[in-house]
């Protein structure tokens, strides 16, 4: 599993693998420490000053409060991949306040200040906004949808964590 976690950090996993990696992180404490260590090593390699060792509790807080959402696929022209994967979890760790966990890929590689400074500072679309938008989207989407009411599942699916 640690290998999968490593691949996930590097943004090299497929969608289903990413979800599995997240699930494992959610369950396994040992694995979370491994996750921390990987990031510390990564940060040290990038000579980033402000090393943090308490990532896990915050990441887990994020995972508990946020649904399982896929990390973004790697882009063809990436910034350092481990940073993007980190961003994905940091967004959650910072409680980036989306009702749904939005793991955003920065469009351009940002300069690399301390890890803490890399956390998205403020929620972007307001809390619950994306979910509100999803409901509006499903409601107003043309009636041509052959799926009828079952399409609304998208608005509530996995939105509150299935593990409770």
């Amino acid at each position, binding site marked *: 599993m640690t290998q999968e976690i490593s691949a996930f950090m590097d943004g090299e996993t497929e969608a289903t693998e990413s979800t599995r990696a997240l699930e494992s992180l959610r369950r396994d404490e040992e694995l979370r420490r491994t996750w921390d260590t990987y990031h510390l090593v990564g940060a040290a390699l990038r000579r980033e000053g402000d090393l943090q060792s308490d990532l896990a509790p915050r990441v887990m807080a994020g995972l508990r409060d946020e649904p399982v959402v896929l990390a973004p696929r790697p882009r063809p022209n990436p910034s350092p991949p481990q940073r993007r994967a980190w961003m994905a979890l940091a967004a959650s760790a910072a409680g980036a306040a989306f009702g749904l966990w939005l793991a955003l890929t920065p469009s351009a590689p940002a300069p690399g200040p301390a890890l803490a400074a890399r956390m998205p500072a403020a929620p972007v679309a307001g809390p619950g906004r994306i979910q509100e*938008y999803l409901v509006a989207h499903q409601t107003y989407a043309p009636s041509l949808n052959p799926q009828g009411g079952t399409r609304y599942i998208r608005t509530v699916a996995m939105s509150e964590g299935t593990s409770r």
Partner: protein
Amino acid sequence: MRPWAAAGLSAVFLFPASAALAADPGDTLALLNRTITAAQKLNYAGTFVYQSGGAVETSRIAHLVDASREFERLEVLDGSPREVVRNDNEVRCYLPARKLVLVERREGRRGFPALLPASVANLTENYALRKGSMGRVAGIDAQIVHLEPRDEFRYGHQLWMDPASGLLLKAIMLGEKGDALESFAFTQVQIGGTIDRSLLRSRYEGQGGDWKVQDPKATESRPDEAGWTFRNPPPGFRKVAGLKRSAGGEQPETAHVLFSDGLAAISVFIEPLGQRAADKVETGTSRVGSVGVYQRVTSDHLVVVLGEVPSAALKRIGDSVERRR
């Protein structure tokens, strides 16, 4: 007229039935049309499994149409008991873990049925329709229909339909590599007959108190009046609706413009940035299950684009948003 063309033409006139069979799309289109109507006109109740991004959930759905109104309730059976209840044009999403109700009202039924034939024609411009073999879903023999995207701006679909009633029994959305992005399938379904009204009542009904109700007002506006232009939407996507949303009070208005290619829909939401600093907003794409989200900042506004389409389509439409001068 060239001889072969004449021969071809006479063949069509002499054997119209076989010609129609060869030109299968018409037949498949009719089936698809029936499915769309069935989803709105049929009474049904059942249990279905929804799969997205490696996660699986079972839900229950009931749909009832009486003289003039349509009722529907969807309840997730795994995890926290979320519900979506539709009472004609009003949709309420109950999220118990957050004690939150999201309300959305749809004014009128503009999309149906007047727009239907044109839309279905639009659909064949963007998807190749193919009638597949027969399959079996929830104990019902089903006709499989394949919708293959004609370009990279939409996903493929595989649909299982009940030939008797037209109801959609199973659907898979396929990614660029033919991988299943999302699927839904009935495991048990009752079509027609009496639907127990209690199946349509929310378990959260009347529970007020500490629940928060989010009930933004949306009014239709002509898409062109929204003050924004879309220079370069992906091919095949047309503007189908424009709305203004307001959460009331001091909240600024958000523009909502909806695009469709006949099957897939893309929503563009444009909200003022307000207090948020533009440089703190990350530009980029993400996915929430099968729904893609793209956001960027332009002219002091946050543009959020979402839909069940590949990121390329979201990005193209999002990047083409411009303030009308």
